């Protein structure tokens, strides 16, 4: 239910409810009593209480339907300060304070990544934002983590490795887990208070205090992160286009989120992508050559990291619904500048798609929901399923998706490689073609690719998916990349070389391309 047919729906700016043509409805369409405060779709007027029910129910229903969060599991909420992730945090608060039958049973923590270092924010401004954030986060009562993007310079290479599923326990079914958890909770409660009836916030507070990650909350940005600001600036300065800078930022942010989740024992991460955001991301990623990965990049759950599952529980809410909710129920949001805040529409593919969809949405009000539904019909590419198969598929060094760079005959990638190679060696003159003399079949001229001049990126490219290659090709030099990327790339190249050595004697021809799966 993500139609935002009235108004733009893509800006996220909440406009007051307008009366539909033919007069304002007098009563809420659901309870038939309350005064309507907003109209979600044409004809659907809700009063404040019913809108809240509808909104809160949608969140629980989506989590319930997918049954992927186990009771007692630690879940990290990725919080950007924007409307969607703010509403997401509020939904978790609402869910935890519900009566026992319906309430959520996981243990949340909040993560905020301070990206001020790449968005041109000075230290003073960053400090201001931070104290504002701390106030909001402390009010939630959840443990929280504030990390600077600069901390990517201290990440371990292992962050670029998917951890196999077998590490997690599959023996227990969801139902068993829920029953077990409830029994355990009842037992605990009896022991502590001698009977049920203790208020939920009290129990939650206890959970938080027992949480070992609590002490990280107290961490303040140390001298380490500040010294890395210059390196971060240098890194983004080496990226020639805003499109690639956007992609790199997203990649580094994801690595940092994964790192916090792993080191603090979170097994799920919730991202606050709204339906509108998902539609923009689908079309943007399609244009960036990520066609194979759209399902993982935007779907409800994404298991590319293996041990930590990424969830998008806000993806059925339109930006407009979220804006209304936040206004009506006083959900605070903080404005933090993005990379392209002041950039014009055509400064990057990300900006272009966002404004394109926004304009199209005002001409064709079903645009966002149609694109969203297109995404719903997409899945992982065959052979991309990590649950079966003896050997782990080779994954992109940066985005950890299964490589989409095996060269298929007649494909766009093959043609691009051929174009690059043809322009680097003396051309075939029209008369001296290889099969002039022996025109026996049409397959005679196929020659294996030859390596040409070597640009600095060449050693990294084979480890990357099609789209991440484009990002890296937009860098003038790779040396400013954080050390963990260099070390993991080196490790992979060594293990590749070792593997090749091992199988060398069985190979018939020397082929650089990875085996097609």
């Amino acid at each position, binding site marked *: 239910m993500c139609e935002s047919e009235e108004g733009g729906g893509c800006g996220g700016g909440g406009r007051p409810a307008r009366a539909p043509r033919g007069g304002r409805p007098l009563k809420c369409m659901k309870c038939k009593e309350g005064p309507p405060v907003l109209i979600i779709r044409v004809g659907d007027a809700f009063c404040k209480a019913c809108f809240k029910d509808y909104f809160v129910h949608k969140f629980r229903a989506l989590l319930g339907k997918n049954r992927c969060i186990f009771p007692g599991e630690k879940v990290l909420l990725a919080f950007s300060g924007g409307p969607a992730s703010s509403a997401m945090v509020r939904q978790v608060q609402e869910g935890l304070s519900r009566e026992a039958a319906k309430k959520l049973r996981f243990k949340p923590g909040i993560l905020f990544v301070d990206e001020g270092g790449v968005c041109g924010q000075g230290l003073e401004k960053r400090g201001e934002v931070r104290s504002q954030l701390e106030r909001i986060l402390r009010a939630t009562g959840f443990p929280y983590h504030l990390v600077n993007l600069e901390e990517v310079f201290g990440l371990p290479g292992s962050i670029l490795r998917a951890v196999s599923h077998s590490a997690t326990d599959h023996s227990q079914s969801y139902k068993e887990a829920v029953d077990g958890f409830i029994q355990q909770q009842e037992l605990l409660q009896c022991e502590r208070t001698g009977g049920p009836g203790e208020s939920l916030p009290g129990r939650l507070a206890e959970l938080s205090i027992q949480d070992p990650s609590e002490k990280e909350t107290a961490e303040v940005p140390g001298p380490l992160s500040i010294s890395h600001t210059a390196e971060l600036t240098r890194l983004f300065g080496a990226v020639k286009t805003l499109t690639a800078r956007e992609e790199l930022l997203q990649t580094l942010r994801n690595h940092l989120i994964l790192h916090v989740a792993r080191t603090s024992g979170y097994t799920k991460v919730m991202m606050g992508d709204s339906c509108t955001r998902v539609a923009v991301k689908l079309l943007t990623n399609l244009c960036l050559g990520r066609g194979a990965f759209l399902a993982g990049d935007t779907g409800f759950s994404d298991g590319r990291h293996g041990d930590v599952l990424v969830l998008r529980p806000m993806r059925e809410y339109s930006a407009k619904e979220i804006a209304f909710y936040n206004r009506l129920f006083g959900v605070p949001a903080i404005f933090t500048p993005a990379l392209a805040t002041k950039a014009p529409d055509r400064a990057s593919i990300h900006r272009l798609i966002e404004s394109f969809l926004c304009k199209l949405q005002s*001409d064709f009000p079903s645009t966002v929901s149609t694109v969203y539904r297109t995404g719903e019909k997409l899945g992982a590419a065959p052979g991309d399923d990590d649950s079966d198969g003896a050997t782990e598929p080779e994954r992109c060094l940066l985005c950890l998706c299964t490589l989409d760079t095996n060269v298929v005959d007649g494909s766009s*990638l093959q043609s691009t490689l051929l174009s690059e190679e043809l*322009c680097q060696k003396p051309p075939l003159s029209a008369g001296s073609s290889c099969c002039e003399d022996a025109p026996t079949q049409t397959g005679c001229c196929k020659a294996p690719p030859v390596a040409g001049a070597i640009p600095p990126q060449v050693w990294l490219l084979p480890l990357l998916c099609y789209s991440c290659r484009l990002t890296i090709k937009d860098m003038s030099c790779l040396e400013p990349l954080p050390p963990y990327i260099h070390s993991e790339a080196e490790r992979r190249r060594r293990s590749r070389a070792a593997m090749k050595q091992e199988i060398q004697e069985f190979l018939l021809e020397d082929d650089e391309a990875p085996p097609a799966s």
Partner: protein
Amino acid sequence: MPAPVLCQSCGAGRAALRRPKTGQALCRECFVAAFEAEVHGTIVAARLFQPGETVAVGASGGKDSTVLAHLLRLLNQRHGYGLRLLLLSVDEGIAGYRDDSLDAVRRNRGRLGLPLHVVSYRELYGWSMDRIARHVGPKNNCTFCGVFRRQALDRGAALLGADKIATGHNADDVAETVLMNFLRGDVGRLRRCAGILTGSEGALPRCKPLKHAYEKEIVLYAYFQGLDYFSTECVYAPNAYRGHARTLLKDLEAIRPSAVADLVHSGERLAVREDVRMPTQGTCQRCGYLSSQPLCKACVLLEGLNRGLPRLGIGKPSRMQKVLTDAEKPEVGFREDSQQASRAIRTVDF
């Protein structure tokens, strides 16, 4: 005055252009050689043709099909594909536009020495595009144009005994179609449109030898080879969504020159979920053409025209399908037209 830039490929010739696809400065000869080698590479790698096949080249008189006909004749000779090539044109019946473009096709036929055949909408369907436009009004013309042209090519090629149809679709066309089908949520077409060789069961196979050629490079190649083509756009404006997709693609290319190839790559790699129901291909009850519905799109549109309700066939196909398949009692007007149509299925040879 700055020194002339040298060709980055041969290092000897003076660079005449910066290649849109790779960004390299090339001399004229190196560009032409690379362009031809790449199309040949595509044909070979994708195994588009088998020796001995008769290939109908869809010839519209525009730049894409003119370059395609020229290249296929050249590469067929140079690399000994062993193909019999024919030019096949569709006369939509658009005054001015079609007459001029058919003239361009005829001039090329002379230059290439390939046989040319023309099939017309009026003969196949009993309606010219101009007459359709008068009935339908200013919008949705391309719905008719596209559906009818596709079938007209198929019918023409079948009558000529061709084994395959080669069309001039280039990388920009494919990228644009990927965008358009994505925006419309048409997953079935989304998967098919990125293919290079399609429709081998039942219908004549179609292939796109220029699938990886950038539109800009096709124009450059035609210019350097002195090819004669007709460059006016169809007078009937494309539908709104295609127009939006086209504008978006141009803007994308301005930001990242590889955007065309990147979109084609995305289209090739898109995976549709296994549990998503795809339309099953059957044949049209009325004309026998491949269709996922009881009646093919052309028959539905045609029936709408003949009943004087041209807009019925546009948009919600289900309504029209139901009307037509529930009551298969042909009206007088329809009977007349269908007889006229079946009589008229023949090609005009030159």
